[in-house]
């Protein structure tokens, strides 16, 4: 029943193709316009890789893939949670606080003893899930705006992180830092994580929960009227976002080897930007994790590009801002075209 209603609402979205009503699938121009933001993101990534590859030798190698994926993975994990929340039509600013908190707990509690470290790592993930679920509950039960609730919890989590570890520092075990360079079949763990994220999404969006989240993002009222518990949707989406933020924190400590009470804020808006560059709509109901991951690659590789072009690294924010604007303009133009075709 829920799925039946959901179908009506994802038909205009860039949703699962199998949920599209028959007929629109034959219209290839409509399909291209539908996926225009995603295609633009792919084009941008291809362009960046092409320029990067023509200026630097060894770009088209497994080593480079391993390196770049490791550099992008923290943002990718944070942006995965953000994508789930955006598809639901919300936004999660608290991931910044959760990432900071996760790194400081790891940097102050992890020991050389693997079992202690494993328990704390699980505790951090559980904390992320719980805090995210709490965000969802606050939003639903008190009927509050996600932007303000997660702004408030961001501040609170950041405060707790600063009390645990006032300045950057602490340490994690050496074997923990080695995680990102662990290899299997020549590919490092971040590349396998990237594949795992894509698999997760491919599975998740077809599950009942995934469909319900997307339907709620498309039209909350219809979802509610067809029997969806909005409270449950919020608890699960923000809970997952918190969980992925905690995962991002754990991965970040393998890169930095330390904790930082302020590092999380560097991931809040970039996580939204990565999703938007990848074609995820801020209005909910529309978007795919593959787009977000490409967006995260684009944002990360701009840094490499600025480096090989031998210009000031300060051009990096300028370039990412311009790319963000171009992507969002491309999607709004595509949307306008699609709308005028319908009329």
């Amino acid at each position, binding site marked *: 029943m829920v799925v039946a209603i959901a179908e009506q609402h994802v038909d205009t979205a860039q949703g699962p193709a199998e949920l599209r009503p028959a007929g629109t699938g034959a219209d290839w121009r409509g399909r291209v316009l539908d996926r225009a933001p995603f295609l633009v993101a792919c084009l941008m990534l291809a362009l960046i890789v092409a320029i990067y590859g023509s200026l630097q030798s060894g770009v088209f190698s497994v080593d480079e893939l391993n390196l770049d994926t490791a550099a992008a993975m923290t943002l990718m994990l944070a942006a995965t949670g953000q994508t789930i929340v955006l598809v639901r039509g919300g*936004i999660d600013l608290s991931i910044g606080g959760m990432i900071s908190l996760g790194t400081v707990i790891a940097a102050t509690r992890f020991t050389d003893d693997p079992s202690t470290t494993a328990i704390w790592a699980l505790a951090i993930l559980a904390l992320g899930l719980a805090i995210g679920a709490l965000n969802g509950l*606050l939003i639903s039960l*008190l*009927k*509050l*705006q996600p*932007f*303000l*609730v997660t*702004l*408030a*919890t*961001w*501040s*609170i989590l*950041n*405060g*707790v*992180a*600063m*009390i645990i570890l*006032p300045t950057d520092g602490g340490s994690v075990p050496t074997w923990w830092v080695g995680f990102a360079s662990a290899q299997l079949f020549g590919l490092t763990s971040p590349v396998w994580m990237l594949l795992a994220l894509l698999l997760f999404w491919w599975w998740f969006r077809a599950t009942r929960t995934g469909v319900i989240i997307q339907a709620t993002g498309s039209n909350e009222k219809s979802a509610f009227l067809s029997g969806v518990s909005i409270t449950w949707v919020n608890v699960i989406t923000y809970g997952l976002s918190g969980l992925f933020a905690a995962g991002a924190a754990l991965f970040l400590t393998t890169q930095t080897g330390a904790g930082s*009470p302020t590092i999380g804020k560097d991931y809040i*808006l970039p996580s*939204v*930007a990565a999703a*938007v560059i990848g074609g995820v709509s*801020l*209005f909910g109901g529309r978007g795919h994790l593959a787009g977000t991951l490409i967006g995260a690659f684009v944002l990360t590789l701009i840094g490499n590009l600025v480096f090989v072009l031998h210009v*000031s690294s*300060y*051009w*990096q*924010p*300028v*370039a*990412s*801002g*311009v790319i*963000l*604007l171009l992507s*969002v*303009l491309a999607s*709004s133009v595509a*949307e*306008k075209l699609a709308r005028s075709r319908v009329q």
Partner: protein
Amino acid sequence: MSAFLARNRLIVLAYAGMVVLLLVTALFSPGFLSVSNMRSTVVLAAFVGIVALGQTFVIIGAGIDLSVPWVLNSAAIIMALLCGGQDLPLVWVMPLLLAGGAFIGLVNGVGVAQFGVPPIIMTLATNVILQGLILVLTGGSPTPSAPALIQFLSVGRVGGFPVIALIWLALTLVATVLLSKAAFGRHLYALGTSATVAEFSGVPTARTTILTYVTSGITAAFAGMLLTGYSGQAYLGMGDAYLFTSIAAVAIGGASILGGSGHYLGTVAGAMVLTILTGLLPALNLSSGALLIVYGAVILLTVSIGSETFAGLGSRFRGRGV
């Protein structure tokens, strides 16, 4: 009177909260209510208040301005660079930078109103672009000190009153007239309540939206110049704190982030509350981490009270004020 209270409940609550906070702070640190301390509290609140003026307009119009930090920072740095510590260049530098702030606001507004870019993304993009450009311009090096005239505007006094407090008062009057008496205010509340209904009712929605972002660009640039005077020089990152505080001040002042309600008079109380809290925590011997926790708790508390009123009463223009 009761009608006034019902309509402006959230604003009255914000002021009540401010008074309670003042008394509590005075309890823990007896010197807090002294004239000199109140003076410095108002001066600090004025910076938040001035930045939050534009933010209030934008939020009432159902938008958000994330470009505030680097509009502020850019104005501060460019002013310090162009003036080189001299007063005379201010004659053309100040108008130029206010126009610059207005231009960034125009870009934001046009992106949002004409191209349909979500406000978060539009203003985020202009923010990072400005950040990058200023970093390229300065190469990360420190800039010359602030001209004496701008220092007078931010730390000087006239007849015992801080000059910046008088500036803030004047801006508050202008904002109140604009929101409560002018056509712009009527258009803005209509736009924030429902852009579609406003459009069909003949409200110039695009122009009104653009004007809110232009205002925000101007107030952020103005605050940046004043803040340079206050700290004696411009430095990179000086605007970062004002993104959170400007939005928090608006929220604590009773505006809905969905638009259509709120008033600058509430934001004034919100700016005061945030600044008094900053003064309260050292008195209680608490760290800056604790301050962030208290900030978050206060925001949650205020928006919860606001949300309850939304559920209880149904009026569209509740909290519109004066």
